[in-house]
């Protein structure tokens, strides 16, 4: 029998290796009141460079997507960066909508220098107010009256002369020109009275004939004259119209000319003012009516603007009158209409009506010439908003239309305002998953969002960065109006930051978590009427945060203590081991010990993952289990088929199992079951393993160690308890103080392991055994017993196969 060759068993970690403290002496202040604010963003050089490039480059599609975890302070950093960036830029033009006098359904858009949109609106209102006074005045002027009298007099004289001439001619022939209800008639008269029919009939024949002929002739003259009357009326009306026009031009022309001078050189304004002038000339009765109506109204009514003059309004949808620099718009509700604007309606007598004054700007309008910041997830959740944003960015213009119009769902007449030219940088802020999904599934996305600003979740921990971090904490504390933190408290926060990222060499950039902790510590200090937040309050704040979320963990640990969940912490068992898992419940995660068991029998080389069979195991977990089969076959029985059927199960786990961090534990349980060597139940194991038996890093190492420690402590276990962790996870250790104290006292142990052999040695107390040159393991080693067990299974299978084959051939013989 070969002797087992020794493999060096790893020693337990010392207490100092379980935690990397922050030395307050390194920080160099007493309280945060002693240090100044920090202006730079810590550890986000990559993201800031991307922001700088994305915001300054002029190329098409260089919009930004800011990746990072929620709570990492992306919004604040982006906002502060853009404010600095935009401050030096020129304010963009105002954007106004005015009436399109040719087609009111298509309002005209006019770009104005910053602040001048409101000026134009004011000037137009003043113009209309002036016209309401000056137009009636012009019509009351003596000049107008004179000229009107001239026209009326001329027409009257022409008419009068003709009728008087006819009347005189009629009188000379014994006739009269008589008015009738609708005109005139020529009739024989005597003493001003029409000759009665009997007297006319009694006239001698020749007189009667002559009179009839005279009547016919004069009536014909009358007819010819009156035929001209409508023509004269038309001519008169035309001349009055021209007169009106001349008079209005005196009132309007000068005012419009003055406006043109004021807005000289601005594209579109002269043409618009020309159309206004034309429209005023065509609708002068509106202005004349105002004076009369004012006289009729009992009280002056200034509350509501006159509807008749709405068409001269200027709707300044985007005004930069009060702005400095480029606009930065954060739209928290990026719905379709909040992005592209909307056209409002008013109800009038049961119908909805609208005009250009009811066009409202969207965030795209407001941000043009600057930056639009949107939350990617909220944007994608809004119907059609993402499509609208892309359309605007591709088209370089923002077109305000309702969803119904966009989808061609309605055929009723609506407004189609001029699209506004768009010069914008869109900054989407979202999580990483969304970014990668968009890259994968939306072909427009990479074209429109070419710049990714990826925010780090953690930064390197060095003396410099720690000091900078402390200043950042001081700055944030002042921004949140917290009381000063002592240097020890700051150091404690920094340590907690390292724990948050589960890495003693890193610090968390998740600002929300840090500020929440500081706020809670500040609250506790206030409760104690302290003036400075101490490290004790920080510890209490951490404990309070845990305590608030601790209910589920407490129930699980209680179940373990009461034996309802089976976890042993002493003794040794074959095919049974304590694995460690991490349960994540919202913002709180904790380690949960779980029993893993393995059984073996003759088979065809399958290692069955029972979790997978019942669909409680995830793909990564299954992968870890499958690796075990490969490891077994390649390491122990290269020259014969693997002839076992093994089952692995997470006992009393009724939720899903994911991840491969239990694969080392599963392998150890399996090897124990094959070899029959019992495993110490005072130890728990975490770590993944590859096909060669190498132990690999896992996540949540701190929670796992602390989870098993808590169970052991509650049981008052004897002192040889501990946890096996991957050696590569040692830098991640930021364990609790009580764990460190237990390790220091030698009542709890943390073993770093690199290989499955090291783990087996610790778990079994037996040498794992190293293969010799021929590949044979020492017989008394764990590996030797495993190999022997597998060979025996193979032999049994072969024998079983022969017996079975013989029986089969015997059965076949006659």
């Amino acid at each position, binding site marked *: 029998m070969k002797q087992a060759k020794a493999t060096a068993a790893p020693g337990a970690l010392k207490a100092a290796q379980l935690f990397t403290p922050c030395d307050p002496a390194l920080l160099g202040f007493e309280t945060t009141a002693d240090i100044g604010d920090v202006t730079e963003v810590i550890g986000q050089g990559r993201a800031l460079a991307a922001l700088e490039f994305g915001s300054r480059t002029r190329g098409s599609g260089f919009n930004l997507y800011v990746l990072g975890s929620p709570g990492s302070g992306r919004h604040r950093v982006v906002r502060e960066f853009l404010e600095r960036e935009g401050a030096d830029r020129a304010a963009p033009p105002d954007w106004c909508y005015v009436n399109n006098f040719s087609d009111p359904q298509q309002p005209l858009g006019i770009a104005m220098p910053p602040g001048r949109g409101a000026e134009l609106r004011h000037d137009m209102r003043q113009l209309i107010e002036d016209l309401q006074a000056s137009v009636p005045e012009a019509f009351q002027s003596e000049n107008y009256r004179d000229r009107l009298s001239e026209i009326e007099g001329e027409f*009257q004289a022409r*008419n009068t002369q003709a009728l008087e001439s006819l009347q005189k001619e009629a009188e000379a022939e014994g006739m009269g020109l008589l008015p*009738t209800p*609708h005109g005139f*008639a020529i009739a024989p008269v005597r003493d001003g009275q029409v000759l009665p029919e009997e007297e006319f009939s009694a006239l001698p024949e020749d007189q009667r004939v002559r009179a009839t002929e005279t009547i016919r002739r004069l009536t014909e003259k009358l007819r010819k004259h009156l035929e001209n009357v409508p023509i004269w009326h038309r001519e008169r009306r035309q001349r009055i119209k021209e007169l009106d026009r001349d008079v209005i031009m005196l009132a309007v022309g000068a005012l419009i000319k003055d406006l043109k001078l004021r807005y000289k050189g601005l594209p579109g304004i002269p043409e618009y003012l020309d159309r206004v002038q034309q429209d005023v000339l065509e609708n002068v009765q509106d202005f004349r009516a105002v004076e009369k109506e004012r006289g009729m109204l009992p009280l002056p009514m200034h509350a509501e603007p006159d509807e008749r003059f709405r068409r001269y309004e200027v709707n300044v949808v985007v005004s930069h009158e009060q702005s400095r620099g480029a606009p930065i718009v954060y739209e928290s509700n990026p719905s379709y209409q909040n992005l592209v604007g909307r056209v409002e309606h008013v109800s009038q007598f049961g119908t909805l009506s609208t005009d250009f004054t009811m066009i409202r700007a969207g965030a795209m309008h407001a941000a043009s010439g600057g930056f639009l910041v949107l939350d990617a997830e909220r944007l994608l959740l809004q119907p059609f908003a993402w499509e609208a944003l892309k359309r605007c960015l591709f088209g370089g213009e923002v077109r305000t239309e309702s969803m119904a119009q966009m989808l061609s769902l309605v055929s009723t007449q609506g407004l189609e305002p001029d699209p506004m030219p768009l010069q914008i940088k869109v900054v989407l802020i979202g999580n990483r998953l969304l970014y990668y999904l968009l890259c994968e599934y939306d072909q427009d996305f990479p074209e429109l969002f070419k710049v990714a600003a990826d925010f780090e979740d953690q930064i390197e921990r060095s003396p410099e960065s720690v000091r900078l971090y402390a200043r950042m904490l001081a700055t944030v504390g002042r921004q949140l109006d917290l009381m000063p933190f002592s240097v020890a408290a700051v150091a404690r926060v920094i340590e907690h930051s390292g724990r948050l990222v589960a890495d003693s060499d890193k610090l968390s950039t998740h600002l929300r978590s840090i500020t929440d902790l500081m706020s809670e510590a500040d609250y506790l200090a206030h409760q104690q009427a302290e003036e400075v937040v101490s490290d004790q309050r920080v510890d209490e704040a951490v404990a309070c945060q845990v305590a608030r979320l601790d209910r589920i963990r407490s129930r699980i640990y209680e179940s373990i203590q009461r034996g309802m969940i089976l976890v042993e912490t002493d003794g040794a068992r074959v095919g049974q081991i304590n694995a460690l898992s991490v349960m994540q419940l919202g913002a709180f995660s904790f380690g949960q010990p779980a029993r893993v068991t393995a059984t073996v029998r003759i088979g065809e080389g399958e290692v069955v993952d029972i979790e997978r069979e019942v669909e409680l195991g995830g793909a990564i977990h299954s992968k870890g289990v499958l690796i075990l089969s490969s490891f077994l076959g390649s390491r122990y029985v290269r020259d014969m088929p693997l002839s076992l059927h093994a089952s692995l199960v997470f006992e009393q786990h009724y939720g899903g199992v994911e991840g491969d961090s239990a694969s080392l534990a599963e392998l150890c349980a399996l090897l124990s079951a094959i070899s029959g060597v019992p495993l110490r139940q005072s130890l728990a194991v975490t770590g993944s393993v590859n096909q060669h038996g190498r132990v690999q890093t896992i996540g949540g190492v701190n929670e796992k160690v602390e989870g098993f420690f808590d169970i052991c402590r509650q049981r008052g276990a004897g002192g040889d308890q501990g946890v096996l962790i991957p050696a590569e996870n040692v830098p991640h250790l930021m364990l609790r103080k009580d764990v460190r104290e237990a390790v220091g006292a030698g009542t709890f142990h943390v073993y770093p392991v690199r290989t499955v052999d090291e783990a087996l040695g610790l778990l079994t107390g037996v040498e794992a055994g190293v293969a010799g040159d021929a590949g044979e393991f020492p017989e008394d080693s764990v590996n030797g017993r495993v190999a022997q067990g597998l060979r025996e299974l193979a032999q049994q299978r072969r024998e079983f196969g022969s017996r079975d084959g013989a029986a089969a051939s015997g059965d076949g013989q006659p």
Partner: protein
Amino acid sequence: MIELAIKRKTRVLVALDPAAPMPSALEALTTLAADLSPELIGLFVEDANLRRLCSLSCVREVSMDTGIERGLDLGLMLNQLRVQRLRMERLLARAARQLRVPHRVEVIRGELVEELLRAAALTDLFLVGRASGMAGARSWMGSRLHELVGTVPGTVAIVHEPWRIGHRILVACDGDAAGRAALTLAARLAGSERVELVVALGDGGLSSAAKKAGLMATLARQAPLVDTRWVELGQLIPERLATLARGEQARAVVLGAGDPGAAAQMVEALLQKLCCSIVTVRPPPGAGSSGSAEGS
């Protein structure tokens, strides 16, 4: 106030002549009769001449609007007259509501001028519309206009369409009782219409300075808020008055009618020359034809 020395209720008669425009006459009525609380009477005369016209088969009517010639039918004409009468009744009723006075409409068949003169004899204010451009044809009173001016014991207003075409009230006054009555009415009109009053002083009666001082004192008492300008016109003849009225853009020319004949001639002449309203005012009963300026 118009000084009407009568005890009975003031009667205002509006000639509802279908050929004369009503709206302006009624607009002027609301100004002229605002303080009178009168009895408002609309007089619609179905002219006997129209019936006679219809009986003459050789006579044809020529439409004023279209120049189309057609025969006259009595039934059709009576129907047209009825429609016109109803329309004017409505307008009169509206004016009466505005003045808050009672009104009634009298329909008379007969000789138009005779009937008007008969009704005018009991009238304090007589109004008739005057169509623009129809002055010659519509001077239906003809040579008997002076009879109307002489018959109406108060005021005759021939109201131009539109009423508010000018912006001053011009009154011709030579200081006699009729002139002072005209001045009083003109001052009230100017006050109501918020326009300037122009007084054209004639050279009859007293010396100009004394006359002007007396009239100014009267005006200062009666209409202290009215802007007044005085123009020495010398002889009050139609040509000068018409020139002045045109120059001043007169809305109405107010004349004293102490001598109805002269007033009628003046009215006829002014109607030919002016496009504005013309008002004649008779002196109050018992007033001398050439009393002192302070006498009214």
